[in-house]
């Protein structure tokens, strides 16, 4: 019962997100706005909501399954895009290398040193 009640809350925040997106004409998905509204509401509230926690944990565990039908599509459209293999390779392999390098460099400069842990300086 709690799970269903929690689900109703999630649907409520999703619909609220949709209302905000539609009224303001935002180029953002309703789910993301709904997520931010939920986080904001929990912050105002100051503590976790048990019914929402009860549905969120299993739903997040199942995310991989909810996404999987989309992955199936790759194998059926790959042929249509085969001429762009170089663009895909560059963006995904080299692009990820560069962005990982950027993140590590930025973070190691900005992050305060961890207490009681010896580390070599760069």
């Amino acid at each position, binding site marked *: 019962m709690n799970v269903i009640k929690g*689900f109703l809350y*999630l*649907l409520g*925040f*999703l619909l609220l997100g949709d209302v905000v997106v539609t009224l303001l004409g935002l*180029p*953002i*998905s*309703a*789910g*993301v706005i*709904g*997520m*931010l*509204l939920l*986080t904001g509401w*929990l912050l105002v509230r100051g503590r976790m909501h048990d019914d*929402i926690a009860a549905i*969120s944990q299993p*739903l*997040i565990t*199942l*995310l991989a*399954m*909810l*996404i*999987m*039908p*989309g*992955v*199936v*599509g*790759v194998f*059926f459209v*790959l042929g249509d*895009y085969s001429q*762009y293999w*170089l*663009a*895909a390779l*560059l*963006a*995904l*392999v*080299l*692009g*990820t*290398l560069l*962005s*990982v390098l*950027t*993140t*590590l460099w*930025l*973070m*190691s400069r*900005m*992050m*305060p040193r961890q207490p009681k842990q010896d580390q070599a300086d*760069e």
Partner: protein
Amino acid sequence: MSDFLASYTALIDHLTATPIAAIAITLLAFFLGNAIFQKMGRPTWCPGILIAALIVVLILILLRIDYVQYQEGARWIILLLGPATVALGVPLFQQIHHIRALWKPILFTLPLAAIMAALYAILLAWLAGAPPELLASFAPKSVTAPIAIGITEQLGGSIPILMGGLLVTGVMATLWVNLLGRWLKIEDHRILGFALGINGHAIGTVRAFEISPTAGAFASLGMGLTGVFTALFLPLVWILMGM
């Protein structure tokens, strides 16, 4: 023989008239894929979701079910992504104390890191001659899938291509953080976790939890914030570029 084939096709048409068959195939493949993934020792180079997707492809080919028919039924599963995305607000709220404690380094590094993750991909793909549809599919490649799907829909990209890009990016991010982290002699688990979450979304976060719980917590935080921030800034970039 052709009689049998005709009645078989009619039967498949009948069964796929409702979403039940597609949902059953998806659930079956998910649990089978997960079991195989565990048997293989949870390899990072081959995420369980990829195994499950391949099982669906195999079932569709063996049973001669049209991909479009399957996708029609699977829409009911994908529909749950909306409430599941909202549910991500729960871990975000639970980690808010990390954000409060380290808001300064986060504010200075995360937006820039998230922007660069998208821009490198857009720029490199554009240089290699990719059309706008492909750029829109690769731009959110470091964002966790439920949010990335929303972004790509907004930008007019292809969801299947995005999903392929997400898988490759997750695996590559795990590999590069491993190699570059060692090369740069970075031993701070907070930094390694952050880098895994920002660049490698859920696949990187799973790897971070294998390093340590601290790395895992920072990876989830990096993944969540990257998703939110990218969802806010990429549509603006698209408007500015006039696409």
